[in-house]
């Protein structure tokens, strides 16, 4: 018996009686949340690497669908986590009402760490979805906060697993229907818990059973995934009833994140006097007609947006490397491309295998590039985050 002597609860203290909640149920829900958070964190790190690669390890160009897959998984697991985490938290809600609320310093730290975990995870999921919806009401710079909070969440999850390991072992090692009922009374204080009174007959769940909760959660979260993932898993696009974007909706069959009007570039983009300036040891300028004449290379590459949509497309254009070599650079150069756009992601750097595979695209799916897709010319490279495929180019510089 590990009964501890706690002061008696006041009569008005909440009391939970649902036989459905149990550590066996929570452990199973938590296992899925843990896997989803790990996938979301790992793919998030890969996405972060697209923006800040180490000089000695440039982002590879193969497989060309790499970023399409990892960012699709990132957004899909993040969205799936919203209902999943809410159900997982429902299953442990009575723990909030342990009595006494704080019994020791260690207990206080433990509770505080759970508050940090829940707060950080909820903010991460909510602002992640808001960012996908182009909804910046949170009022801070999304990327650095999302990146830093991701580490806070990942670490807090590991700490939480460490603290709860005995519960997890009990929960996963016991049949889901047999587990102790989870109420506001902890194991150690509960005279009828398995740890104090030995194995108990399974509690009766006349309405929805624990297995039923797991089944309904699986169907509900599965339905969310199936109805949203069509924005990147194109065979499922017809089922995308809740898809935020449809991969075939948009000019020339490709969605647009930022239009030419929003970027404020229309006039300069369609100016017949436009020319591409290429800076390097031997700088030169390329007029529109000369550029269009050189646009003879074709490639099928996906465009995969950080916001989770992606689609395979046929591109035609010039090889970026040809221009870089003419300017005195080579396959090992670091190249910066610049946009007519004055704010936002107006430049990006490209190097290594992506540089060798990159096109300066003038055509998309057989047509001259639409102005919302970056007319007169945009960058497109395999396995590259959509926003780094800079649109409305007017300058290229061989940096090194």
């Amino acid at each position: 018996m590990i009964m501890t002597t706690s002061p008696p609860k006041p009569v008005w203290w909440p009391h939970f009686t649902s036989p459905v909640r149990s550590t066996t149920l929570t452990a199973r829900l938590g296992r899925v949340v843990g896997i989803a958070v790990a996938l979301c964190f790992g793919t998030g790190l890969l996405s972060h690497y697209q923006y800040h690669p180490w000089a000695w390890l440039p982002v590879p160009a193969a497989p060309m669908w790499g970023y399409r897959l990892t960012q699709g998984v990132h957004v899909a697991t993040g969205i799936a986590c919203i209902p999943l985490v809410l159900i997982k938290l429902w299953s442990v809600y009575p723990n909030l009402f342990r009595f006494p609320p704080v019994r020791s310093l260690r207990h206080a730290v433990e509770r505080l760490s759970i508050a940090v975990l829940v707060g950080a995870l909820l903010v991460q999921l909510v602002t992640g979805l808001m960012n996908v919806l182009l909804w910046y009401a949170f009022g801070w710079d999304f990327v650095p906060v999302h990146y830093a909070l991701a580490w806070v969440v990942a670490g807090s999850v590991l700490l939480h697993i460490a603290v709860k390991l005995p519960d997890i072992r009990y929960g996963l090692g016991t049949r889901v229907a047999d587990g102790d009922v989870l109420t506001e009374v902890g194991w150690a204080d509960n005279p009828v818990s398995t740890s104090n009174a030995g194995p108990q007959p399974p509690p009766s769940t006349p309405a929805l059973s624990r297995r039923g909760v797991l089944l309904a959660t699986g169907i509900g979260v599965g339905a969310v995934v199936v109805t949203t993932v069509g924005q990147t898993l194109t065979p499922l696009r017809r089922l995308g009833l809740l898809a935020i974007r449809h991969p075939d909706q948009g000019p020339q069959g490709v969605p647009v994140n930022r239009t030419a009007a929003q970027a404020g570039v229309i006039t300069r983009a369609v100016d017949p006097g436009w020319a591409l300036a290429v800076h390097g040891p031997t700088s030169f300028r390329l007029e529109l007609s000369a550029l269009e004449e050189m646009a003879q290379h074709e490639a099928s590459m996906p465009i995969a947006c950080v916001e989770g949509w992606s689609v395979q497309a046929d591109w035609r254009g010039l090889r970026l490397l040809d221009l870089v070599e003419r300017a005195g650079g080579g396959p090992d150069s670091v190249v910066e491309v610049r946009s007519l756009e004055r704010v936002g992601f107006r430049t990006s750097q490209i190097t290594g295998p992506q540089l060798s595979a990159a096109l300066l695209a003038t055509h998309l799916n057989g047509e001259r590039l639409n102005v919302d897709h970056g007319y007169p010319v945009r960058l497109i490279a395999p396995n590259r985050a959509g926003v780094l495929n800079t649109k409305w180019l007017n300058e290229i510089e061989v940096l090194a």
Partner: protein
Amino acid sequence: MITARGLLAVAGGLVAGYGALLLVTTVPPSSLLRVAVWMATAVIIHDMIWSPSLLGLGTALARVPARGRRFLQGGLVVAGCLVVVAVPLISRQGSQPRSTTILLQDVGRQLAVLLALVALVTLIAWLRQALRDRRRGVLSSTGRSEDGTRSQ
């Protein structure tokens, strides 16, 4: 298990600590304050509004006989999953020019279709159970008479 817990705890502390370090070194203090307010608000909304509402819903459902209630509860869980994701989408509908190709579909209508589908499947599952019970001669019992518990 003690070693595993220790290793996990140290790793977790280091990873979370790195996140905290990133926060204070890369995010301006005014934004940090906002993040902290959002985190606290998220916990408060979840613990003081959302969860008590679920408890209230569960208590209200306790009037439904248990054998039927399980289907209602299951259907509501599935519907809830769809609703929590769809509502932010609906609230953002029309917020961007059409040329940004975001949320071009009528999400409210799509959600209604999905919820109708969930209701239909739930009803079919319940009818199947009711028919089976009838064939076996099981009398439908009320939740309260079987035991006094409410389940949410």
